Structure formats: C-alpha cells, structure tokens
C-alpha cells in the first residue's frame, strides 16, 4: 500500500512538471520544471529499488546535464521571453497525433493485462529487507557481461568532448 502511495506521488509530480516544462515560455522556468521531473523520476527509480541509478540520475542528469542547459540558456540571453509566435496549426496536429498514439498504446497495455499466464504483476521476488546490494550487483553485470559497451562508452565520451570543444571555440583559432 505504501509503495503505490509513493509511486503515485512521484508519478504525479513527474507528469505535471513535464507538462509545465513543455508549455512554459521562459526557458529557465521550463529548465526548472525539467529538473523537478528528473528528480521525480529518480524517486521512481528508488521505488523500483534501483538505488545506484537513483543517485547517478541525480548526479549526472540533474547535477551535470541541467547545469549545462542552464548555463547555455543564461549565456544565449534566452531568459528574456522571446515573442513566442507559436504556429497554431502545428500545435493541434501534434496534440491529435499524441492522443491517437496514447489511446492505442493504452489499449494495448490494458489488453495485455487480460492475457492469461503473463500476469503483468511485479513478483515480489525479494522481500524488502533482504535486498541484494544494488551497487555490487550492477557492478558485477557492468564488468561481467557488459565490459565491451563500457569501453565503447569511453570512446563515445571522448568523441563528445572533442566535438563540443571544436564547436564552441571561436572560428579564428579553430
């Protein structure tokens, strides 16, 4: 019972602030609402007993990527709300498409509940107190079966670092 209360608390915050993020005119306000969504998602990771992911979401997403977004918004003088001439038609089409996709996927998930045998219930495999240490489990998998993606991730970061610096430096001494 407590689990679902916590889930609805975080899910509610996530959806409401996501909706606010997309509709705000001022870029810094929408960045703040995105931070609230990310923190609520971190809460949901915690509720799914993924502790290391909870803290890496806070450190990386909120403490890293959002700081970069806010820096760029401040540097690009975007905080002054620009005259938003939103294209009317595009908005309605998008809403329509979203509703259609949402309805269809909702029906699929709802029907999947009725399929015998594949009850979509989360088995309470491990009772709450006897939890495997999440960080050690994740580390064993990371350095066990997923060692190669781990090394490729460093190449990805190298490419991103070099690319971003070349982009940001002035053309003169490129």
């Amino acid at each position, binding site marked *: 019972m407590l*689990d*679902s209360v916590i*889930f609805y608390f975080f899910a509610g915050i*996530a*959806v409401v602030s*996501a909706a606010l*993020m*997309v509709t705000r005119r001022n*870029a810094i306000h*929408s*960045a703040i609402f995105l931070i609230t*969504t*990310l923190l609520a*998602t971190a809460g949901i990771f915690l509720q*799914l007993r*993924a502790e290391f*992911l909870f803290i890496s979401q806070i450190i990386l*997403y909120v403490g*890293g*990527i959002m700081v*970069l*977004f806010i820096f*760029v918004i401040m*540097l*690009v003088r*975007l905080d002054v709300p620009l005259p*938003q*001439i*939103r*294209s009317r038609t595009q*908005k309605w089409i*998008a809403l329509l498409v*979203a509703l259609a*996709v*949402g309805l269809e*996927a*909702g029906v699929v*998930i*709802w029907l*999947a*509940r009725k399929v015998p045998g594949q009850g*979509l*219930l*989360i088995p309470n*495999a491990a009772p709450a107190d006897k939890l495997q240490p*999440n960080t050690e*489990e*994740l580390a064993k*998998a990371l350095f066990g079966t*997923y060692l190669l*993606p781990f090394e490729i*991730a460093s190449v*990805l*970061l190298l490419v*991103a670092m070099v690319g*971003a*610096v*070349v*982009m*940001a430096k002035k053309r003169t001494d490129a």
Partner: protein
Amino acid sequence: MPIGHYLFLSLALFLIGAIGVITRRNVIIVLMSIELILNAVNINLVAFSRYFGDVAGQVFALFIIADAAAEAAVGLGIIIAFFRNRETVLADEMDLLKW
C-alpha cells in the same frame, strides 16, 4: 504494483516529450524534450529490470544516461556555434545550410 502503471507513466512522459519536440520553436526546449523522452525510456527499462529480477535493464539505463550527457554536450555546442553566427535560436530561422 502491476507493471502496467510504470508503462502508462513512461508512455505519458514520452508523449509529452514528443509534443514538446514537435510544437516548440526554441531549439533548447526541443533538446530538453528529447532528454524527457530518454527519461521515459529509462523508466521502462528499470521497471522491466525489476519485473524480471535481472539487473541488465539498470546497466542499460546507466549507458543511456551517459549517452544523454554526450548528446547534450554536442547538441548545445552546435546551438552555441549557430547562435554566435546567426544571433537566433529559433528552429524556423535555421533554414540555411551554409552562410
């Protein structure tokens, strides 16, 4: 807690992100909506990792966060380079391939 709840939540966040990408003219808000979509995917991954009791989903989600960091770095780099030359960040005015 049936897993359907998590699927509905990630579906809702994905749709909101998709609407953000389509309707907003400001490229930085579009980039933020893409981060939101990546987050929705992460919720699905972790929910199924909990459902199958296998930690692979969480490892995959960790790699997605690392990739989102790389993507945000390069994406914002492009926006800054573009803003320095054309003084605008609106998607409608990015209509020239070479200036």
